[in-house]
């Protein structure tokens, strides 16, 4: 049973209202800790697992910081039973990544409450740090007022990250508890909705008032979804043109130094030991000379295009489009664009959407007897 409630906003401070809501959950006997982004020494916002309500004062889930995809942290907290109940405050893409990790047996939902907030988007890490250096006073609220509901391409002169601008998932549909921003009066009250029995129980436990969804919400969500989808499609078109043969693909990744940060930052890339870190790629030194002689020259470090193509093949069906691959790149290669372009196609091919439904098995983990018969044999299109 879905239940709709609301959080009252006081003193025109929606961020504080969300903090109070988190504090009311943490005060429950049934909740042991809250995982939420929070300010660290006025400098940056990082996720923290908070047990002391006083420390919730620094929580700021609506800031423009998105330093990492917290799904990886949820995996750390829940790969075995955490021994208590954790409320995890996550962005929609983080929730979808958690669902992918659960399917891949890297996380568990027992003891986990997913609390999603309508996503205002975020800045890239460097842009956020530069902004924070200029002053952090009321940044969360400034950000909300600056980008909700119109989803502009920039905030206070700095660009919203490419991934967020082109993200058609502003609403955390898969959350146990959802806090709405789109269509709400940020100075009055924010809608809260429970989507699952465990979410319902928590709202009951804090005696959340009955309420109704704001009349404007659906239209506001549709509007932002449409705007971002249009940006996404334009991004697809541009990117497809940039990589439409293997030479161009290699050129796209020309600045890659094989640091593999994109893989480390990827929330769904879950192998303990990636094949690219194994001795399969510790080529015998004489091989380099062989390649150089055969082709006249070999790009170093080697295997760059191979690495990116393989990661696309291995992970694109699980890609949630969070953009942390681009965020992590030391040389500002727009990795996310290629990933989303590919993921859009591969997920559609298997009628799959990463993070949509925890019951849907990952496409390469299953098969059926009578599928894809058209690709077998020598066929000409």
């Amino acid at each position, binding site marked *: 049973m879905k239940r709709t409630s609301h959080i009252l906003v006081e003193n025109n401070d929606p961020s504080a209202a969300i903090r109070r809501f988190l504090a009311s959950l943490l005060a429950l006997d049934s909740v042991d800790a809250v995982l939420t982004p929070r300010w660290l020494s006025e400098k940056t916002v990082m996720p923290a697992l908070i047990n002391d309500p006083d420390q919730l004062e620094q929580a700021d889930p609506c800031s423009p910081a998105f330093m990492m995809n917290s799904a990886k942290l949820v995996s750390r907290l829940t790969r075995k039973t955490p021994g208590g109940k954790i409320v995890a405050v996550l962005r929609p893409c983080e929730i979808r990544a958690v669902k992918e990790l659960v399917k891949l047996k890297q996380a568990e939902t027992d003891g986990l409450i997913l609390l999603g907030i309508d996503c205002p988007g975020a800045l890239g890490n460097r842009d956020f740090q530069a902004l924070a250096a200029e002053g952090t006073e009321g940044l969360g609220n400034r950000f909300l007022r600056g980008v909700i509901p119109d989803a502009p391409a920039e905030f206070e002169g700095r660009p919203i990250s490419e991934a967020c601008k082109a993200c058609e998932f502003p609403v955390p549909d898969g959350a146990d508890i959802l806090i709405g921003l789109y269509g709400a009066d940020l100075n009055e009250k924010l809608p809260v909705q429970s989507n699952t029995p465990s979410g319902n129980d928590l709202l009951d436990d804090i005696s959340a008032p009955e309420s109704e969804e704001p009349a404007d919400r659906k239209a506001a969500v549709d509007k932002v979804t449409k705007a971002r989808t249009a940006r996404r499609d334009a991004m697809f078109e541009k990117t497809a043109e940039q990589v439409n043969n293997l030479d161009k693909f290699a050129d796209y990744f020309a600045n890659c130094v094989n640091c593999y940060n994109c893989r480390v930052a990827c929330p769904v890339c879950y192998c303990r030991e990636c094949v690219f870190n194994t001795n399969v790629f510790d080529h015998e030194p004489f091989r380099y000379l062989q390649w150089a002689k055969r082709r006249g020259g070999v790009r170093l470090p080697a295997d760059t295009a191979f690495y990116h193509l393989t990661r696309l093949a291995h992970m694109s069906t699980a890609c949630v489009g969070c953009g942390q691959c681009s965020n992590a790149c030391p040389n500002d290669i727009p990795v996310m664009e290629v990933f989303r372009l590919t993921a859009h196609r*591969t997920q559609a091919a298997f009628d799959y959407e990463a993070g949509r439904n925890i019951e849907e098995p990952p496409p390469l983990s299953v098969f059926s007897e009578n599928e894809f018969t058209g690709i077998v044999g*020598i066929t000409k299109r």
Partner: protein
Amino acid sequence: MQKEDPTIIAFVCNWCTYTAADLAGVSRLNYPKNVRLIRVMCTGMVDTQYVIKAFLEGADMVWISGCHPGDCHYINGNYKARRKVKLLKEILPLFGVSPERLVLTWIGASDGIEFAQTIKQLTDIAREQGAEAGGAA
């Protein structure tokens, strides 16, 4: 552009297509020399990265061939291979590699003649496709 001497990298299943290759050999069947056979225990173990590597190294075509549905020595490896081929046929065209350059067939252990004929057909297709799409590395 026509390519006279295309290279086809083939991943063939130990239990069926490789046995068919053996049969083609002992039957003294002729077929073009363009195929480099790589024997694998099951097409289900052919990771997508093997195919990608072959194209990046300049293969004109990658051919995966295993047991007919229902005949897999490991029960269902060929079905898994089919999903991976489906995945690759979605990914590779984005980067300019025609899906026709990746072929999946089922050739049973007794199909020596079919093995030889398939190679003839594949070589023709590879010639039509022209110079290799890859080679960027």
